């Protein structure tokens, strides 16, 4: 291939192209248009299906007590009780719960993504005795259901005085969540060619340096993904907060949500209102993180 391409900047990823490449580009663009239209059609249909339950959720959140499930179901609530949102937020100390949830979630996410990327890098890039055994062990911890380790975990935390603190929820080594992100980062890191690493090694760079200066900047999409996954995991986690936090002032939103449902009564309208509110921060985060999904770095001259 005779194209000469050179990255202009790492962030914007614009290219200076050879004429032949540019021509091929245009030709491909023309071929893509009908496909794009078809994709739009398919996506719109699927989106409508996916959005239907949300529409129902919003509709239900505005209904009167006792009228939420009427047969036949009514889509437009009449009357529309906007005060349900107020009731959902104030019936229980939701703002306090929100504060607690934010503290736990943000700390855990920051710590978690940071350490998961470091550990994942270690498993992906470095050679050390016992690496593969430890990685298998790491992965294996995902496979035991947490129900049966709940009580032993409780006993350990109690012994070191962590019960009734946020610490068990922040430490990013819990079964599940964190290991997943280590594995993800490892997979992603293993797709990055080692050429830059080796060049850096020659210059005497340490692994830490390589991780920080080379691998991390190339991993923005996966880091953004890990951050979102971590955020959502901690945001919605209710069992461990419930069991490990004994003071009701330390409770999280996810626990509050479950209080709308009991043995005989489900407060539908309030449950839906609270769920809708709980979704908002995640939506906001997701929107904000969108730009990291498009990496923009073209790694030419190395791959291919």
């Amino acid at each position, binding site marked *: 291939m005779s194209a000469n391409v050179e990255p202009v900047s790492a962030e914007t990823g614009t290219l200076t192209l050879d004429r032949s490449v540019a021509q091929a580009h245009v030709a491909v663009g023309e071929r893509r248009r009908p496909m794009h239209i078809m994709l739009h059609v398919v996506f719109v249909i699927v989106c409508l299906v996916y959005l239907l339950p949300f529409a129902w959720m919003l509709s239900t959140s505005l209904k009167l*007590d*006792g009228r939420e499930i009427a047969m036949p179901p009514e889509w437009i609530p009449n009357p529309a009780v906007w005060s349900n949102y107020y009731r959902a937020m104030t*019936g229980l100390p939701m703002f306090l719960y929100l504060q607690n949830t934010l503290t736990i979630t943000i700390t855990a996410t920051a710590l978690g993504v940071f350490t998961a990327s470091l550990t994942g890098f270690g498993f992906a890039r470095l050679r050390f005795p016992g690496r593969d055994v430890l990685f298998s062990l790491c992965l294996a911890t995902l496979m035991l259901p947490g129900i049966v380790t709940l009580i032993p975990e409780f006993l350990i935390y*109690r012994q*070191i005085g962590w019960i009734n603190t946020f610490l068990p929820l922040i430490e990013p080594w819990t079964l599940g969540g964190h290991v997943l992100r280590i594995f993800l980062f490892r997979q992603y890191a293993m797709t990055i060619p080692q050429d830059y690493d080796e060049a850096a090694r020659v*210059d005497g760079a*340490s692994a830490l340096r390589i991780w920080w200066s080379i691998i991390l900047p190339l991993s923005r999409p996966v880091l953004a993904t890990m951050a979102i996954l971590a955020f959502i995991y901690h945001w919605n986690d209710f069992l461990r907060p419930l069991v490990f936090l004994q003071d009701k002032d330390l409770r999280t939103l996810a626990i509050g949500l479950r209080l709308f449902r009991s043995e*005989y009564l*489900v*407060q539908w309208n309030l449950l839906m209102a609270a769920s809708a509110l709980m979704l908002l921060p995640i939506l906001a985060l997701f929107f904000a993180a969108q730009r990291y999904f498009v990496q923009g770095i073209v790694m030419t001259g190395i791959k291919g």
Partner: protein
Amino acid sequence: MGNGTLQRFSRRRMIQSAALAVGGLAGASLLAACGAPAAAPAAKPAEPAKPAEAAKPAEAAKPAAPAATTAPAAAAPAQPAGGQVTLKAMYWSSSPEDHKLFEDVFAAFSAKNPGIKVDFDDVPSDDFQTTALTRIVGGTPPDVMELHPAWVLSFILANQLNDLTDRAKTDKAAYLPAQLDFWSSKEKLFGMPYYSGPSFLFYNKTIFQKAGAKTPEEHEKEGTWTWDTLIALAKQVSGGSGAEKTFGWDASTNAVNLQFYTCVPIWDNGGDLTNKEETEWTLDSPAVIETMQWHADLQLKDKAIPLPSDVKDISWLFRTGRVGMAWAGRFRSIELTNATFDVGMVGTPKGKVGPINRDGPNATGLPMGGKQLDAAYKLGTFFGGPDAAPIYLASGRALPVQSALFESDAFKKSLKPFERSEVFTNAAKTVRAWRIPGKGAEALRAIQSEWDKVLIGQEDVPTAMKNAKATMDPLLKVR
């Protein structure tokens, strides 16, 4: 790559900082890990010491008990030398309004008992058992805990609830005897009731009018309100299809909800669920099979009782106005405030005997390992007593557990327009206290799966009952 900047991070520095990091973290982790092995063995089979330790608080409580019982429930605060006591209270609420109700009750308790504060831990009911067990096993039991008849037996048999018999010697008289029976075992009392919900029926006056049928209330007045009448009425008022479907009888959604529904028509039919010693289920007896057969017929042939698919967790079907009669407890009343139809109330019908009724009450228990038994007991008796009534009973969510409170202003004030107090009084008086024996949860799942097969036509009723009994009998053996 520039050479200069990277030279600073020489290999020696790398090793030095790595060593520092490792050392620091190792030190911290050693401190933490020192605690861990000590805790982990505690979870292992090296625990014969536990019952001995558990027995000691009970012993220590006994000398204090006579002193506590000489003072009536509304006594002046008598707490251990000097100051504030905080009680950890684990209950579950069923809505934000319910949550507030608990808080109001506890506030009133603290007002009446300065020096005792209540820390209300509202645990969602779905997670209550998991949380309670973890806290108790983990060594941080609450001071007071809500008890439920479905699982209280396991706690009692395992000595995990404090024996309240001596403390309650003088307080017992105020309570309805059946209410105390739910929380007793072998003459010992383990819980102080506060919530009672004996069953009765709601009926939809509008549907009966439309069908031109005599209402259950009219039958009750004439003395013809029997289970046979109920079956006939159920068939009469049901009909329609699709979204217009009307059901005659909503038997608490689940025909094999043994503890909270099924026992009643069986008892009224002269039958019983187990033999007297509770060593055998009598599900294959004629009385039981007869009762379950009409349920199956009403559900499958006449379509007069909804199937699980019609009601599963979609909330209370009666509320939608498509059900003629529904089995209910008082906690359902608050759901009918916005009803789009005329609501009527009637008591449990009678059969060959009866009417015998059931209850699904709640009580306050004092878990083993709690250290503030006097204060905890005070809270237990406060809740179901006259001092809490202006708040708790007045909310209209429960029926009184003490007989005198049926005459109280609080109770009278709580009555809604469609509620009839005589139905409530009769319901409370006819309760037979029955807890599901042995491994109740597993037994219920066993009969549920057999009944599922009946509902899809895979099995007939006698076979299902026989199979269920075979699976459930071994579960009656308690360790």
